[in-house]
Each structure stands twice: as structure tokens, then as C-alpha cells.
């Protein structure tokens, strides 16, 4: 297998392998570490109400970086990326409906809690 080791970045005749350039891997890693430190700092500070949203935006940036480069979705067929988006979409759908419903009937729970919790204390 001696010959295959030196044709490093050149495209192989087999057409299967698309190695990601090393520099890009390291660049992505350092960006991710940077974003982690950023999210820890902003996590400590309190923004009026949108600190959860900010944390999620940073996390989504990190996630897309990992997906595109580390999981080389950028080089693969778009259908694979679509599969992943599909799963996130379905989680979002499930989250939205259940959260909407829970928000609606919280009032009934709180009313019951006010009536009953004080007795059991």
C-alpha cells in the first residue's frame, strides 16, 4: 500500500474519498473553542429575556460548523443534509405543539397548586 500514502491531497481514482484539508479542520476547531468561551461569558451576563435565545444562536452556529466541515456535509450529496434538517424540523414541530399546549393549561395547574400545596405543607 506504499504508493497510496504519498498521493495525499490529489483526488483518488476510486472517487470515494474526499479528504477535508487539514488547515480547515484546525480552523474550525479553534472557532468552536472560541464560540464556547463566548457562550460561557455571555451565559454569565443577564440580557433582558433573550439570553436563552442568544445561547441557542451560538450553539446553532457551532452545530452548523461541525455538520458542514467535521461531518463533511458540504461535500456530500445534499440529500444527506436534508435528512438531518428533516430530523431537526420534526423535533421543532413536536416541541412547538407540546410547548404550546403546556403553556395553555399551566393556569389550571397553578390554580390547583395554590389550593392544595398550602394545605400539605
Amino acid at each position, binding site marked *: 500500500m506504499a504508493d497510496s500514502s504519498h498521493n495525499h491531497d490529489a483526488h483518488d481514482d476510486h472517487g470515494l474519498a474526499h479528504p477535508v484539508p487539514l488547515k480547515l479542520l484546525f480552523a474550525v476547531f479553534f472557532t468552536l473553542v472560541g464560540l464556547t468561551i463566548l457562550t460561557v461569558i455571555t451565559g454569565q451576563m443577564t440580557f433582558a429575556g433573550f439570553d436563552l435565545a442568544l445561547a441557542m444562536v451560538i450553539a446553532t452556529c457551532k452545530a452548523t460548523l461541525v455538520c458542514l466541515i467535521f461531518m463533511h456535509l458540504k461535500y456530500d450529496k445534499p440529500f444527506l443534509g436534508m435528512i438531518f434538517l428533516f430530523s431537526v424540523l420534526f423535533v421543532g414541530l413536536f416541541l412547538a405543539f407540546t410547548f404550546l399546549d403546556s403553556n395553555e393549561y399551566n393556569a*389550571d395547574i397553578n390554580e390547583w397548586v395554590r389550593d392544595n400545596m398550602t394545605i400539605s405543607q
Partner: protein
Amino acid sequence: MNLSALLRAAAWLQQDGDYFFPVEASTNAGEVDRIYYFIFWVSAVSFALIVGATIYFAIKYRRTKVGMNPEDSPHHSTSIEIVWSVIPTLFMIVMFKWGFDDYVDRRTPPGDAYQVNVHSQKWSWSYSYDEGPETGMGWLGGEGEGLVVPVNVPIKLRIDSADVLHSFSVPAFRIKMDAVPGRYTYAWFEATKVGEYPVFCTEYCGTRHSRMLSKVQVLSQEDFDAWMKAQGNLADLPPVEAGQKLFQRKCASCHNMDGTKLIGPALNGLYGKEESLVGGAKVTVDDNYIRDSILEPSAQIVEGYPDAMTPFAGQLSEDEISWLITYIKSVK
């Protein structure tokens, strides 16, 4: 036997009802029946069409000669696909809209509704009125009067549960709402006919789920006021009688007083006797044991009985417990 008395009430509701539905005993019942019949006839016609077409095609184009090839016929036409997608959708929009209107009305009690609190626990219902006394459940076999309400008055039910999921369902009023522990759920109805209507539990809740029956007694306004005044408070009754009424409401769905095992042990003549608990410990039945078993039943389970009693901690006041103890002591 009270058992048949209650269930005859269930059968009674059938005489006035039509083939599909029990008697229309609430303002809303007629509306539900009309929606039902609309959907019923739309479905019946479309069912007849599809089954008729299948049978007709099957007979007309049956394969008389073995290996017979069919005549030429189109095997795609977008226009017919659109037609038989749009028409069902139109019917469904009407169904949805009508059902939606009735449901919104079902879920929003009128402002002036008279509130009654419905409490459910493993295998019995009980009702309490904000200003009146807590009445027993019309448990089958028990003398409880069930949910007593005046006629032609909107009644708002605040439903809660002490242990597992139950569901308060009165077929004659076409109402149903689950009892979820840890929160309130609401339903309302306005009875239009005086009489007795059975209440079923329609959310599976364990061994005696099929016996968690009760009834709604609809009285005229005068009878209701008379009944309410006659109830009075438990506190005015002698302790043994108060204990006995309370026992009917809270305990009779699992404990008998005639020596036979129901779910829990029979409690007559139990006071002073020695009981062997799961795990071999022995305990004599005294005031403290009865109190602890009421508040924290799972701590001391008698040998040979399921650990299925609902803890009453926080649901019975001190004197209610003492009435129960005096009543249990009194029955030999």
C-alpha cells in the same frame, strides 16, 4: 339491591333516546346529535357509493374467459383526482366548523354557572358544593345521592383527582372530561329534564374502573333548595353518624363492613384485633394505626392485600379522621 336501582337508571335513559343516542337531557345534547346525523348521512352516502361501485365494476368487468384482456381505458386523469380530493375536503370543512363551534361552547362555561367540585379517587366520585356540604357519591350500593343539581341552571364542574387519571362522563348530557391529578379540569352542562342519569368513569384507572359509577340527580329548583337545606353540615351530626356518612363517601369503594374482602380488608370488628403486615411485623389495630393507615397507607400494608390505597394526607381534616375512627370502632 341498589346496584340494579342505579343501573336501571342507565337503562331508563335509553327509552327516551333514539337508536343511536341516550336521552337528550342537556341543552347541548341536541346539537351533538345533529352533528352526528350530518356526518352519519354524508358517510352513509359515500359508503354506499364506493361499495356499490366496487360491486358493480367487479360484476360488470369480471374475468369471464380465463386470460381475457381488458379493453383500453385511461389510467390517469388529473381532473378526476382533483374532483375527488376537493369534494371530500369541502364536506370535512363543514364537519370541522360545526364541531368546532359546539366544542368551544362546551369548553367555556357561562359566567353565572353554579360551581360544583367533582373529586375522583380510585374507584369513587364525590362532590362538594362551595357553600353546601360535601355529598357522597352515588356509588353503586352506597346510599350517596350523587351529584344533585337543579334543572335549567348551568352547572360548572371543577374536576380534580386524588391519585390517577379518571374521567367524568355523563352520556345523557353528552359531556366528558378527564380528571387529571395535580390540576383542575372544567366541564359544564345545563340539565333540561328532571331525573337520574348515570355517570361513568371513562379513563382506565385500575381494578374497579368498571365499578366507578355514580349518578346525577336533576331536581326542580324547589326540591334542590329543600335538599340543600336538609343536608346541613357533618359537624352537626353525632360522630358515629358523621363517620358513617364520611365512610360511604371516601372508603366504601374499597372496604366493606360485612366481613367480605373487596379491595382492602373488611373493617367491621377490626378494632383491637392483631393484624400481620407484609414483611411479618404484627400490629394491633388502635387509633394510631387507623390514623396512619388513612394518611400513609403504603407504610403498613396488611398481608395478602394490594398496596393500592390512595394516601389521604392533606385531604381529610383532623375531626374528619376522628369521626372515621369512632365509626370504625363502633361497628362490630
